[in-house]
């Protein structure tokens, strides 16, 4: 099986989707001959022509508005927003249009073919505007699906599923892992399910939940905890909207403890949604309060990024506190 980094896996998924269906069209800022600022769309213009892979003018609201129209017509747009930090000019198009197209027309029209790809997350010395994790703005928007892969294998399978999904998907790519995450990825076409979490490690003492780049950080914390004899179960949600409450609840019924971690700020973060749902479903089984390990309630900093981020040591401490409650 070939080894790929996450960018290669994403590029490979786009290649497969474009080869299979001529309705798949990739566009965004610098995605053409340059292949995107991270090179996720390398060689696609060469292979499929300028009509199917092209640079847009520098206007995010235009990119998503155009994509909505294109999807409504029956094409399968894969629109790139260069950084998730720059998605906000398109917020109106995504929240008021993409998410409500089907509902408001009584299913006369829909933009189900649309996939929006965008790199998110910190840990790259990107400061305020190249580091944010805006998932919670979008998980608060019925009509969207929100998917976040943790490694190259997941990225390829989930992206192919997103492109073929009958509903619009916001596909958040953990850019810190673009080149750092390397793993075996089948060359063939495959899909991974949207809306199903994956238990990446079984355990009995405590459940850890995360998604995207945070899974690697959780993994390091788990190593520290296991050295102290704490047996951890780890769950990658993979999809935040819809999210797989059943898998998490089942795990917490077994372990009695839950830590949820994300890079985004605490207040209004998606961990709050997980905690509320799980306390309702597992109330009598909980041995300790559900803990959230997240970014601070501040904009994303630069020089003090390390202090801001929910790193493995902070997660490890939360595990210890939970177990010793």
């Amino acid at each position, binding site marked *: 099986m070939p080894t790929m980094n996450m960018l290669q896996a994403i590029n490979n998924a786009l290649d497969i989707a474009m080869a299979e269906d001529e309705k798949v069209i990739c566009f965004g800022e610098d995605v*053409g*001959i*340059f292949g995107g600022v991270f090179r996720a769309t390398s060689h696609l213009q060469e292979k499929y022509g300028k009509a199917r892979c*092209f640079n847009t003018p520098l206007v*995010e609201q235009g990119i998503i508005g155009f994509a909505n129209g294109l999807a409504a017509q029956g094409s399968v747009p894969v629109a790139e927003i260069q950084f998730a930090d720059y998605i906000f000019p398109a917020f109106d198009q995504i929240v008021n249009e993409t998410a409500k197209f089907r509902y408001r027309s009584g299913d006369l029209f829909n933009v189900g073919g649309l996939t929006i790809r965008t790199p998110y997350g910190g840990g790259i010395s990107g400061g305020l505007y190249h580091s944010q994790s805006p998932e919670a703005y979008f998980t608060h928007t019925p009509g969207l699906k929100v998917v976040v892969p943790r490694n190259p294998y997941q990225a390829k399978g989930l992206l192919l599923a997103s492109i073929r999904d009958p509903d619009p998907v916001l596909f958040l790519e953990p850019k810190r892992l673009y080149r750092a995450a390397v793993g075996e990825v089948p060359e063939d076409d495959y899909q991974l399910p949207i809306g199903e979490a994956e238990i990446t490690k079984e355990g009995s003492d405590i459940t850890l939940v995360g998604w995207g780049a945070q899974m690697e950080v959780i993994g390091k914390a788990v190593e520290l905890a296991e050295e102290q004899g704490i047996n951890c179960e780890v769950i990658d949600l993979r999809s935040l909207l819809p999210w797989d409450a059943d898998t998490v609840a089942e795990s917490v019924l077994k372990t009695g403890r839950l830590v949820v971690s994300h890079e985004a700020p605490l207040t209004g973060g998606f961990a709050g949604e997980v905690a509320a749902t799980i306390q309702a479903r597992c109330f009598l089984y909980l041995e300790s309060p559900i803990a959230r390990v997240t970014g601070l309630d501040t904009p994303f900093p630069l*020089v003090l990024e390390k202090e801001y981020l929910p790193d493995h040591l902070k997660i490890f401490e939360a595990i210890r506190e939970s177990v010793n409650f």
Partner: protein
Amino acid sequence: MMTQHAHQPVFLTGDEFSIPTFSLLSPEGELYSEADAPRLEKDHALRIYHAMLATRILDERMLAAQRQGRLSFYMQCTGEEAAVVGATAALDDADMIMAQYREQGALMYRGFSIDEFMNQLFGNELDYGKGRQMPIHYGSRKLHYMTISSPLATQIPQATGYAYGQKMAGDGHCTLTFFGEGAASEGDFHAALNMASVHQVPVIFFCRNNGYAISTPAAEQFAADGIAPRAFGYHMHVIRVDGNDILAVYEATRQARELAVERNQPVLIEAMTYRLAAHSSSDDPSGYRSKNEEEAWRAKDPLLRMQKWLLAKGWWSEDEEASKQESLRREVLDTMKRAEKRSPPPLDSLISDVYADVTPALQQQFDQLKQHIRRYPEAYPRGAKSLDLSVSTDADSQGGE
């Protein structure tokens, strides 16, 4: 406006208009025979030239520092110094500037010291922005230069609003906003021009048309003849200028300022120039443009063009050039060494300025963070540094203007 009626369909494309490029200095640094030299005193001309030269040298040195791993990121103004410094020099020093991110020449002209540049670049304890933003996101209240924000074009409608406030205050000042031809595709650009025209706002929209938005060439950015014709749609004064011609940029902006301040007329200036450097230290232009194209523009270098003009006028000499370059290089290197040795901003700069006052909830998060860092100080060397020196959160050694 009077409505004209036609009884046969007539479709217009804008090709009916042709917008000339205003230029005064030839690439050889000679005044065109039909051109009048703007009134520019020797001292003023040298102040402009020094700012352009210092910007060039700062950019060269700091890109090299980034390549050595001393700096996380850098962006050069190279090739666009005349556009940026020329426009700034035509303003009153107290006029507001709202820039995109590639306009360090404007700050240089206004007297931002090399130390001040370095403190921001290294995000140390003296950085006015408290180490929160990536390198080149400068700001200076005393020099009337709004702190840079990475999201593109957001400053353009803000400039309209700021200038409206200046008009209300009646203090005779205007705002100039810089942006690239790529940013002009954003909705914010169109909103800004429309509101400025409707409300008769003293704002100058200065577009640096440098040919590329990262990799995207202007031809894939717009189908029209550049940015300038858009002004017609908003009934706004517009001029296109050779952005590598310091005299033309200066004179065009000087007259634009008169329209803005004396008649409350917004003006769009499109400066035709070229981004000689990569978009940023993270970019490699060899993937999307040719060396030949770059060389052709290098021959139109705005700095050399002004230098030739100054030499011919006898206002500058080869010896002065050599010694100025030498002293600037030394200053940049010495200052860099100082700045990179300074401490990072204190840990509590993480939570200040989110609001005017720290909220109780955030204070609680911060107290937990301090407790955590005390447990693992070696894992957070920057945060632990100020925490160990001073347990009290009141001791704020932060830089301020």
